[in-house]
C-alpha cells in the first residue's frame, strides 16, 4: 500500500465529500447537516457539535478511504469509474444500514416508537434518510460517487 498517496488522496477526497454535502444542503437538496449529526453524538452543545462533527467527519472519511485503497490494491484497479462504483456502494450502505442503525447508535436520537426524551431529541433519519429531505439520497450518492472517483483518480498503486 502506498501510504503517502493514501494520506493525500484520502484527504482530498474527504474534503470534496464534505464540501459536496455542505453545498447540497446550501442548495436545498437536503437538510442533512452531517457534521452536526455526528457532532451531536459527542456533545449536546449545538455550536460545538458542528465543529466536533466536522473534525470527526474529516477523520472518518480519511480513515474510511483506507478500505477503498485496500480494494484498489487488491484489484490493482484505480480507474475513476471503479472508484465511483465503490462510492455508490458505500453510499448505499450508509443510507440503508447506517441510517437504520443510527437511532440505536446515536445517543441523542429519538425514535418514532418512544418519542423524544430529555436526552434523545434528534429527529431520526428514516428510510434512506428521507426524513432529511426527499433528495437526500441523491446528495449522498453524488457526494460519495465523487469521493470514490477522486480517491481512485489520485491514488497511486504501490
Amino acid at each position, binding site marked *: 500500500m502506498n501510504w503517502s498517496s493514501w494520506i493525500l488522496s484520502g484527504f482530498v477526497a474527504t474534503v470534496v465529500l464534505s464540501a459536496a454535502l455542505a453545498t447540497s444542503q446550501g442548495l436545498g437538496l437536503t437538510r442533512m447537516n452531517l457534521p452536526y449529526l455526528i457532532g451531536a453524538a459527542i456533545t*449536546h452543545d*449545538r455550536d460545538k457539535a458542528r465543529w466536533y462533527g466536522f473534525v470527526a467527519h474529516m477523520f472518518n472519511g480519511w480513515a474510511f478511504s483506507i478500505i477503498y485503497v485496500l480494494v484498489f490494491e487488491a484489484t490493482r484497479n484505480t480507474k475513476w469509474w471503479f472508484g465511483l462504483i465503490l462510492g455508490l456502494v458505500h453510499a448505499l450502505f450508509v443510507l440503508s444500514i447506517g441510517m437504520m442503525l443510527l437511532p440505536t447508535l446515536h445517543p441523542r436520537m*429519538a425514535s418514532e416508537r418512544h418519542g*423524544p426524551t430529555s436526552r434523545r*431529541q434528534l429527529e431520526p*433519519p428514516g428510510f434512506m434518510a428521507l426524513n432529511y*429531505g426527499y433528495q437526500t439520497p441523491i446528495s449522498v450518492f453524488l457526494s460519495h460517487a465523487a469521493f470514490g472517483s477522486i480517491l481512485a483518480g489520485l491514488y497511486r498503486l504501490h
Partner: protein
Amino acid sequence: MSVQENQSLTEAPLEGSFPPIGDYGIIGDCRSAALISKHGSIDWLCWPRFDSPSVFAALLDRERGGSWSISLANGDFLSRAYLPNTNILETRFEAPSGTMTLTDLMPVRENTSLVPDHEIIRQVACTSGEAEIQVVMEPRVKYGEATPRLERRGNLGVRFCYGRGVFWLRSSLPLMTSGGSAALRHKLRAGESLLFSLSYTENAPAVLPDLNQLPARISVCANWWKNWAAQLRYQGEFRDEVLRSALTLKLLTFVLSGAVVSAPTTSLPERMGGSLNWDYRYCWLRDASLTIRNMLELGYLDEAAQFLDWMLHATRLTQPELRILYTVFGNPPPRERQSTVLGGYRNSAPVRFGNAARDQLQLDVYGEVIDAASLYAFHGGMLDREMQKTLVGLGNYVVKHWNKPDEGIWEPRTGRRDHTHSRLMCWTALDRLVSLAEQGKLTPPNLHDYRRNRDALRHQISTRGWNDRLQSYVSVLDGDELDASLLLLSWYGFEKAESPRMQSTYRAIRKCLTARGQLLYRYRTSPPEGAFAICSFWEAEYLALGGGNSDECRRLMKALFQYQNDLGLYGEEIDADTGEALGNFPQAFTHIGLIGAALSLDQRVKGEQQLAHRAETARQALAAQGDPS
C-alpha cells in the same frame, strides 16, 4: 392530567370576519414574530425570519391564509396581558363550565444546548372548573399558495415539509390529522394543562423538544426578557408604556444582524378596503437616527452599537449611495409582487410582498444615518476609521446631490419633488459632520465644503421652505402644503421649538392636519387615510422640546395612550373615526416616537439637556474650553 380519548376533528373555529387589527398581540424571538388574536389564533407567522413566506396568514385571508387556534369551546375571551417585563403572552378565556389560560411564546435562543432553531410554545391550562379546549392547526405555506400534507410520525408528533424546511408539531396528546389540518378536542379539569410545540428547521436532524422540559424553558425565556427589561434606564412617569415599546422594538430586532424591521407584517391596510397595503418587513434607514437615540438613552448600548454597525455594513455595497430599505441581512428587498391567493385584510387588496420603495430616491436617509452615528459618538461611542471613512463618503454624496428632488419621507408614488424634510435631513447630515469635525472625532478633507453647503441648505430652507402667507414652513419648497414632518425641524436642531417660526408652523399644522381630538394626519389626502400615529408623538416631543410646556406634552401623551391596544401596542395609523389601529402592526416607528417623546419630556421635567440641542451644546462646551472653531 386526565387523559381522554381525542374526539374527531373539530370544526375550524375561524371567524368569518376579521378581528380588528388592534386585537392582535405579538410574540417573537428576535428573528421572526407571530401575531395572535384575542381568540387564541396565530394568524400570522413567517419562518425562519421576518420577511420569509408565511406559514399562517389568516390575518390577510380567513379562508386561505392558514392559522393555528387554541380556544375554549363555548367560551369567550376574558383578558390578556404579557407576563410582566416579557414578550410572553397570556390570554384568559371563560366559559360557563370553567376558565382557561393560554400562554404563548417564541423562546429566544437561551444557550447553545439542543433546542429547535425556531419554535412556538403554547401552554394551555384549565384554571377553574372544566375546560373543553379545541385546537386546530391549518398551515398554508408560502402566503397560502400551498397546503402541506401533515404526517403523523408515531410518538415524535406531526410533521410537514415545505421548501428547505421541516415543521414539527409536538403535543401532550396526539392530534388527529386530515390532509392539511391537525386538530384536537379535549376536556381539562382545574390544574391540568397541555403543551404544544411547533418548530421549524432547515438543518437535519431537527431537534424535537421534550415536552416535559417546556415549563422550565418558559421560565428561562421569561427570565431572559426580564433581565433585558431590567437594563432599562428610563424611570420617568410613562415607564410602563416606554418599557412595552422597548420590548416591542427588541422583539423586532433581528438578532443575527442587529437590524430593526419596521413591522412584522405586510399589507395591513392604511385605508380600509383600499390599496394602500405595503410590505414593512424590512429595515428602513429612516428609522435609524431615532432608533439609535432611543436605544442609547434607554441604556441599551449594545443594541445601539450593533444597529449602527449593521447600518454601516449593510450599506457598504452601495456606498456612498444609500438605498431606502434593506433586508435584515443588508440585501435589497425583493421586487414588489402581488399575491394571487390572499384576498387581503377585510378585502383590502392587493396583498404585496417586497417593496417598490426600494427604487426611490429619498435624500433624507443620509441625514438619518449620519445623525445616528453622531448620536452614537455623542454618547461616548468610538467612530473607528472605517466608520469615519463611510461618514465622509456619505457627506460628499450629500454635498453633490442635496439639491435634487426626491420622493421624500412619505414615499408617495407620484414622482419627485423638492421636499423640505429631505433638505432638512441633508442639512442635518452636514451639520453633524461639521460638529463631529469640530469635536475632533472626524477629519473630513473637505470640511469647508460641508460648511458652505450646510449654510446654503439653511438659507434655502429658511427662504423657500417658508411660506409667508401661511406663516409656516411647508412640505415642498415654494409650496403651500403642510405635512407633519415639519415638526422635526426642532428635533434636528434646525429651529428652536420656541421660535416664532416654529410656533406658527405648529399652529398651522394643528389647524390643517388635525384629525380627531389629539390626532394628526401626516398630510391631507382625499379621501383621508388614518391619522399617522408617530406624528402625534412628534407633536408631543415638539411640546417637550419647548414648543409647549410639560403639562401640554403630558396631556397629549396620555390622550395618545388611549389609542394603544390592551397590550400597549400601536399600528402605523389610527382610524380617526373609530380609533382602530390601521396599517402594519405593531409598528416600530410609532413605538420609537413614543419613547422619544417620553425621553424628551423626562429631560425637560428634570431640567436635563435635550438631545435636540446636542450640536449647540457641543459647540458651547468647546467654546467654553477656548476652542476657536
